[in-house]
């Protein structure tokens, strides 16, 4: 009770501070809006060299300001939720410095681990580059949306996107039935399973489930031996990863006869990879599927 009152007071103070900050921001934004739009000040030829910055960029700026996105965003398995029409009309790059230079960008967005040599070459040539770390939490995602919004000079639009995301997430979360979080087993390629402190686990937790990795108690991604997978009793299972097609050796583990009994006796869902690769609003696609599965399980038990 006591601690509840404390947080209550603290949050009241925080909201007052937030209001103050907001009014300050309002002064600045109205001041900026009062001036005629200076297109030179905001980047107008933005290149994104990373799948995850592709999605954030397409959501934040008008397509006319995008010089190119990665070819990955035009692929069906990777394309971000609801942006296929936008992505298909944009120019693409394959992370090569030469392609990017030809597009004469005034801002380049890149990921920490993608096209590192091209990025260091472009930086050496004096291009304006903003590098984004991969998102490990939904807060990382909000921070990256803000960072990108500032970089492209559309901070207000970024806040809108965050607010919209949070509202839609809250609407979905309100539907999660009460009770302890059941275990969701996403048996990825090579029995690659997400544990604590991964974006995947944060998405699953936000949807009212725990991951198999959390149940087994480890950090990061890990290849879990089949025996260990079999020793658990998940409430929901997803074995068909999008990588099942085209077939690869790594997905053969999923067809192991020992898994068959578990797969047959457990409800299954299919979460397209595009919903969980990036910390971006597309994750709502995964949340929706998982919340739906949770509701279905409860409804079935009532019957």
């Amino acid at each position, binding site marked *: 009770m006591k601690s509840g009152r404390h947080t209550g007071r603290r949050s009241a103070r925080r909201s007052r501070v937030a209001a103050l900050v907001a009014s300050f921001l309002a002064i600045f934004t109205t001041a900026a809006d009062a001036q005629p739009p200076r297109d030179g000040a905001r980047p107008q030829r933005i290149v994104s060299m990373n799948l995850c910055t592709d999605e954030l960029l397409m959501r934040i700026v008008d397509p006319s300001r995008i010089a190119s996105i990665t070819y990955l965003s035009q692929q069906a398995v990777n394309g971000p939720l609801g942006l296929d029409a936008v992505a298909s009309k944009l120019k693409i790059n394959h992370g090569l410095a*030469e392609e990017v*230079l*030809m597009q004469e960008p005034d801002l380049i967005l890149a990921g*920490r*681990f993608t096209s*590192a*040599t091209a990025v*260091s070459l472009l930086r050496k040539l004096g291009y304006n580059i903003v590098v984004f770390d991969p998102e490990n939490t939904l807060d990382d995602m909000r921070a990256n949306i803000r960072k990108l919004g500032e970089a492209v000079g559309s901070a207000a639009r970024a806040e809108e996107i965050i607010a919209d995301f949070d509202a839609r997430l809250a609407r979905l979360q309100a539907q999660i039935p009460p009770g302890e979080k059941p275990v969701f087993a996403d048996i990825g390629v090579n029995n690659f399973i997400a544990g604590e402190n991964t974006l995947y686990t944060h998405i699953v937790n936000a949807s009212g489930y725990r991951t198999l990795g959390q149940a087994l108690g480890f950090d*990061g991604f890990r290849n879990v031996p089949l025996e260990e997978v079999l020793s658990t009793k998940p409430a929901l299972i997803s074995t068909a990863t999008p990588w099942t097609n085209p077939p690869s050796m790594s997905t053969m583990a999923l067809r192991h006869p020992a898994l068959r009994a578990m797969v047959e006796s457990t409800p299954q869902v299919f979460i397209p990879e595009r919903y969980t690769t990036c910390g971006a609003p597309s994750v709502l696609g995964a949340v929706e599927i998982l919340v739906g599965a949770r509701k279905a399980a409860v409804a079935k038990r009532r019957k």
Partner: protein
Amino acid sequence: MKPPLSYPLLIAGLTLLVGLLAFLSMIVGPATAGTFELFDMMAHGRADTAWMIMREVRLPRTALAMLVGMTLGMAGAALQGFLRNPLADPGVIGVSPAASLGAVLALYTGLSAQLPLALPLMGILGALLCALLLQGLARRGGVLTLVLAGVAVSSLCAALMSLALNLSPNPYAAAEIMFWLMGSVTDRSIDHLVLAGPLMALGWLLLAASARSLDALSLGEEAAAGLGVNLSRTRTLVITGTAISVGAGTAVTGGIGFIGLVVPHLLRPLVGHTPSRLLLASALGGGALLLAADILVRVVMLGPELKLGVLTALVGAPFFLWLIFRARTELES
């Protein structure tokens, strides 16, 4: 055995080929960006960008492909001559894997994210450490010890690289290491060229200094010693030269296989089986082959760019098989 064409003619021909391929490499762009897009840009008032791309992207790329190819060809020829073993190449004695390991450690520890040049520097360091180790071991044993020690160092480096992949904190970091290991000269800058170029040249000088001893060694170790060849000096020259030049090359490009193995075999009959002449011929042949491979990588675009090391191995291995079969029929008929 008399070679089909004279040595000066062969060298002139190979030089011409290297020049031609280097020229092509300067004008051919990646298929996804438009193979001849630069000329279009020059014609339409965007000449500044076009020239900048030529100077800052294609020039370092072309120069590195040529120099690294030359290094691999020359080191392969020197090692095959010195060890009198047709299977020798810089990979077998552990130099390229050690350089790769150094670079992978730079990637794995995140050092290269802080300081991009840490990657090639660590690679060079790895190759030099490997050379020191081999020198220390080989002082006591002979050629066989050297080869076996090299194989052991190779396996150890490969195991440590797998360990780095195994323990890699996230799938993105692992993918970065894996792609680097496949080898490429794409998007390297002038900085890479300035770093690796002089070291490669220094390595070549050391290898070239061993040329005469290699000729004598083709008669066997004892005969060579009788002719006044200092075996340990030759070994130092070949190993240090290989470590410095191939180490510097691998450190900026990643692992590029098969050039050091195949090119000397291909050119040996053309120089009348003379090891000293093979050095220069093989260097030019290696340069031409890697330039050609790097042009091919740009023309054949299947989604992401093919990695150079993948292509050289893909083309090199079947070709090597063909060489073996041809040699066998020659020997057996």
